[in-house]
């Protein structure tokens, strides 16, 4: 099982991005996704910046894959994908426009977590198209991930740690928070390098709004599931970048996979959730028979 570092989902300024990727070189991750999965209007992270950092990472021995936006709805956004396709790196397509364009351009292409690959035959179809790897949707449970991995001859990856990207909109939630629309974008989401947390009135849940995306408020983490991860037939697990502590997390996963005892308290994660992997809600435990009854 290898570690991968997902694309930065937040709108960080150039210096933060640079220092993050300097540190990423030191992380025990085999693969680094770098790109723009959320919004093409983010200024500090355009194709030119992505290319520079990608070269540095590649020279440092990392496998580099360029991530494309999860939601593309107009010509300007398609042009951004085409710019990314011109870079001399493999592509992670996060929706079907990028997948199709990358295949036509004979690029090495990976299906990202925002492409709907839910079952063994979806994976076989994508493999048949020539896709080199698939990151399955984060809502798949362990059993389904493993069924897909068992029949696939390509890399299979799944999310293992981070505030998960759960939804994408045409609307910018950060601008909406200020009573503005997209025409008024001045990269306001840059003021929230960890997103903006919105909480239920009684603290019983919430989300992180982040530009045009919604992330989980809770940290999703499989850090305590090293044994299951080691036995997995999948090739990679993904860690999502955070403003602080990402290297510590990557080190911890690396150590755990080597069988080392972890000091989880020292990692300072607090309560984490792992519901998707466990086929449960990502919060309080529910009676599992409720779900079974519904699916019967």
């Amino acid at each position, binding site marked *: 099982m290898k570690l991968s570092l997902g694309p930065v989902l937040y709108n960080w300024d150039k210096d933060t991005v640079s220092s993050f990727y300097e540190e990423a070189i030191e992380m025990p991750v085999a693969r680094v996704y770098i790109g723009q999965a959320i919004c093409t209007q983010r200024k500090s992270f355009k194709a030119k910046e992505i290319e520079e950092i990608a070269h540095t990472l590649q020279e440092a021995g990392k496998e580099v894959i360029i991530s494309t936006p999860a939601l593309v709805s107009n010509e300007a956004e398609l042009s951004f994908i085409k710019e990314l396709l011109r870079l001399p790196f493999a592509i992670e397509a996060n929706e079907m426009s990028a997948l199709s364009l990358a295949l036509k351009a004979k690029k090495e292409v990976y299906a990202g977590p925002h492409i709907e690959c839910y079952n063994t035959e979806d994976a076989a179809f994508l493999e048949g198209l020539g896709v080199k790897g698939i990151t399955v949707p984060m809502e798949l449970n362990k059993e389904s991930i493993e069924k897909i991995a068992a029949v696939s001859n390509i890399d299979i990856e799944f999310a293992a740690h981070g505030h998960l990207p759960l939804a994408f909109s045409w609307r910018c939630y950060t601008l909406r928070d200020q009573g503005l629309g997209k025409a008024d974008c001045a990269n306001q989401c840059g003021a929230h390098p960890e997103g903006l947390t919105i909480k239920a009135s009684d603290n*019983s849940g919430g989300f992180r709004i982040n530009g045009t995306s919604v992330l989980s408020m809770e940290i999703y983490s499989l850090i305590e599931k090293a044994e299951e991860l080691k036995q997995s037939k999948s090739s990679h697990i993904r860690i999502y970048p955070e403003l602080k502590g990402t290297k510590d997390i990557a080190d911890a996963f690396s150590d755990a996979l080597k069988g080392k005892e972890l000091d989880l308290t020292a990692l300072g994660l607090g309560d984490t959730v792992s519901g998707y992997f466990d086929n449960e809600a990502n919060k309080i435990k529910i009676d599992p028979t409720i779900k079974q009854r519904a699916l019967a």
Partner: protein
Amino acid sequence: MAPAGNLSSLKAAAEAGADSVYMGFSGITNARNFEGLNFTVEDLKDGIEYLHKAEKKLYLAINTFAEGDNLSPWFEAVDKAVELGVDALILSDLAVLRYASTKYPEAELHLSVQASATTHEAINFFKEQFNIKRAVLPRVHTISEIRDIHEKTDVELEAFLLGGLCINVEGRCFLSSFVTGASTNIEGACSPSRFVRFEGTDNGGLDIRLNGTLLNSLGADESSPYPTCCKGRYHRPDGSRTYAMEEPESLNAVGMIPELIEAGITALKIEGRQRTKSYVREMTGVTREAVDEYYKNGDNFSIKPEWSEKILRTFEGGGQTFGAYGGK
């Protein structure tokens, strides 16, 4: 194009002037898998006979995603629908699209909104791979973006006109799934009712929870559509309370019928297979009148006050919006 959760809604839609009606089989193969809703094989047979006699079309949605390795319920649904003679299948899962297009090359396939195809490149990919005839557009585009897509594809485009509004792109929204553990894409229901709790409060209001998470606290004089995470009311960091993602409002684009048709939309779709027969009748009737009015009066098209009244009355509380059609 009108929704139907049962035969009587289907008939109401046809009587009110729908050109086509869409529905799903009971069970997990369709994205409106709510209790007591949807069609048995026998109902579908009757529905097809009824609509075909009236020279109208019936489209069947098989638009959830099969998880893991058990695709047989989806494949069997395709087989049954083709055998019964539906006019088109509305599909989303790549494997189901491949199965249907390979086994039944003559069958008319529509790409479900759940497939999340939002550009001409994506739509043309599905055309090349599976020969889809029509694509249902996710509710993420402005009118001019729809026009751009139409110019670069010969796939028919279908757009939502009325009803519930997904503010996040359809097919890839995991908010309900994260909170409940029940995937909307797999199971076919956002905010499944077994996780929803309404609790009266001391001030005469209502607390609404989804699997324990408080989505909203309504005051005595407030109402809300069916509770979903995206229409929840949350606290911002400064303590103020706000509908941070989307107001409790529904899509009403009747006023944009001319723009939608002129941008290249082939079919106008009414959301709401889970809604009542009277909702279907009212919404279909208004849409029929409005579309006829456009073809009769063209540039002089204007919304009649009685349409707006009827539409607002059928929305489950809350206001109305043009969604992305009105600009981003």
